[in-house]
């Protein structure tokens, strides 16, 4: 595809947020369908878990989207309405919600948030020609289906898996690694990439197990890890089961590093496992720490003002994913096809990074960061590539 027509677009100004919180809440808190009756409003959606066991990541993203939409509506002439498609993170519910996106005539959705639900919903969205920009579904296979309307604004697990393996071997110095996954499209996907990457780095796989994320008891897995002599554990999955597995490992006296992925990068992992138990616990993520940049600081304070809480994992990516769609709408593209062409051919200044898409819908570039549990939250250690040198 020719790149001759690339321009820079900046996102709607952050300045006008303050006075518009009430309006934003009024237009975006609807849980099922757009309630605004304004004739000119363009409906877009958020697709992801707002309830259910791993809802926090979805809520983080949705808040980022809500903030972007409220800032956009503050200045724009063609208003945007936001429809929530709450998947509960459950792939079984995803096709039905994709149908709802079609019925509601959405032109674009932010999401689906998780990889499993993406696999179920994206073919339907693709067929209907609805633009999707996921801020967080990192399974590499999603980019291999030739979908024209699908986009992803974070690096995928093909980047995250090897980076996690490098961090474990080169930075943490582990030579025998237990690799555990939760059998989800995402968790097993990234764990398999870590399994493939470890031998090349000179480390062996001490034991390889899959757990049931809904089971209460992981004692057989804990026993297997202890018996294997693993000097580090990698867990592919989400914070809910990760927290309980970590707790049971620490209770059994296992003190070696516990490394997980962006699905586990949430303070709830620490509150589930306990602060003392979360010592020596890390999570990798394609999501960067935005607290250092000017745009990031403005985003953080606007987010804090609107939701009375600090941005969480993928909040900034949710904001950027919505920003890409809103930039296209602002440029006068109000049809799915128009938006799709527009975002495929432009570069956007996001708060997380510069965003442009490859022909498969993946982002150009996109580094992997690592975070360490400390106190009640995760703090950024920086890019993995810098840490392992």
């Amino acid at each position, binding site marked *: 595809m020719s790149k001759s027509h690339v321009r820079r677009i900046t996102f709607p100004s952050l300045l006008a947020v303050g006075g518009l919180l009430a309006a934003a809440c009024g237009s975006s808190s609807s849980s099922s369908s757009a309630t605004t009756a304004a004739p000119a409003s363009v409906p877009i959606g958020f697709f992801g878990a707002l309830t259910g066991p791993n809802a926090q990541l979805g809520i983080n993203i949705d808040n980022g989207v809500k903030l972007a939409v409220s800032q956009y509506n503050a200045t724009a002439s063609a208003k945007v309405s936001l429809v929530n498609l709450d998947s509960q993170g459950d792939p079984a519910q995803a096709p039905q919600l994709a149908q709802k996106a079609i019925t509601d005539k959405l032109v674009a959705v932010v999401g689906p948030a998780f990889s499993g639900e993406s696999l179920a919903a994206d073919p339907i969205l693709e067929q209907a020609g609805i633009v999707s920009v996921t801020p967080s579904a990192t399974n590499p296979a999603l980019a291999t289906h030739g979908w024209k309307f699908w986009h992803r604004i974070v690096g995928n697990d093909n980047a995250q898996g090897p980076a996690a393996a490098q961090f474990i071997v080169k930075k943490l110095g582990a030579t025998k690694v237990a690799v555990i996954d939760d059998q989800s499209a995402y968790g097993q996907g990234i764990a398999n990439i870590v399994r493939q990457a470890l031998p090349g780095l000179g480390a062996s796989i001490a034991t390889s197990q899959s757990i049931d994320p809904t089971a209460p008891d992981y*004692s057989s897995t804990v026993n297997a890890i202890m018996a294997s002599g693993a000097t580090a554990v990698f867990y592919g999955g989400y914070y809910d089961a990760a927290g309980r597995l970590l*707790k049971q490992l620490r209770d059994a006296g296992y003190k070696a590093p516990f490394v997980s992925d962006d699905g586990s990068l949430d303070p709830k992992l620490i509150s589930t496992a306990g602060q003392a138990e979360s010592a020596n616990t890390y999570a990798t993520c394609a999501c960067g720490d935005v607290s250092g940049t000017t745009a990031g600081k403005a985003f953080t304070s606007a987010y804090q003002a609107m939701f009375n809480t600090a941005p969480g994992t993928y909040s900034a990516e949710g904001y950027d994913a919505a920003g890409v769609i809103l930039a296209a709408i602002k440029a006068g593209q109000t049809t799915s096809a128009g938006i799709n062409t527009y975002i495929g051919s432009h570069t956007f200044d996001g708060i997380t990074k510069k965003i442009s898409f490859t022909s498969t819908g993946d982002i150009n570039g996109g580094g992997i960061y690592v975070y360490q549990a400390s106190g009640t939250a995760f703090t950024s250690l920086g890019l993995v590539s810098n840490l392992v040198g």
Partner: protein
Amino acid sequence: MHNLIIQFWPSVIDGTTTGAIYALMALGYTLVYGVLRLINFAHSEVFMVGTFASLFTLHALGITHAPGGIAAIGVFILITLAAMAASGLVAVGVERVAYRPLRKRNSTSLANLISAIGMSFFLQEVFALRYGRDLIPFPRVLQKNVLFHIGTGVVRSDKLLVVVGALVMMFILDRFVNGTRLGRGIRAVAQDPSTAMLMGVNIDRVITLTFLLGGIMAGAAAMLYGTFYEVTQYNIGFVIGIKGFTAAVLGGIGNIRGALIGGFALGLIETFGGAIFHAQWVDVVAFSVLVLVLLVRPTGILGENLQRARA
């Protein structure tokens, strides 16, 4: 095979621990089935309410880390009583609201089943709306100290508490059902409701008592679960409920000692299944064993009769 040798004793200990909780849950299913020939699918929510009751008691007491000595015993008594009272009340409430009106109208057992599922959803959603859908952590009530070793296995204080606590509850229940006047009423109704009624047994009162006992056992399981796993959630009862029901069927549903054996057997099968194969095969192994047992003994290990357990 090497794995199995290293993991043999840890598996025995962990299997017994989870099995003890399964067994307590199985008792609730088995008691109700024995008397009413009905599976109380809301029993998992009776358990869930118990975990919340002990959590709230801990919050009310201001416990943030494990107390020592006499205080610890007092805390345990309080959270146990709170969980038992809450679970017992919910179990009796479920019977009043979801089963008794249907029974009075001589409805089909399918209607009871749907009613139970409805109660189950209702209770889950009430707690989900009130307390959110995320895991809620427990403060630590009991230090997880290593007490002694058996082979390569480590016996921790919390695991010992679960097993001993469960065994004590089971013993009390067994004595109550088999050795008291009220227990005789339960056995009479289980054997033949119409004859029991003719002999002057108040069936409604016996049924209420049965639900209460099942609820108290679930409350004990909930307190032990909270102390051991230190988390709860609106749907925490779902998996435990299925495991408890499975244990009850494995041991012989309607049979109190069967529930006990079924619970420990299921716990051990699961951990050994996980040790020999891999963690992902735990449920496959457990349910394969269940099917095999039912092929040979269709009514479970000890058979179906509540009465026969007395032998």
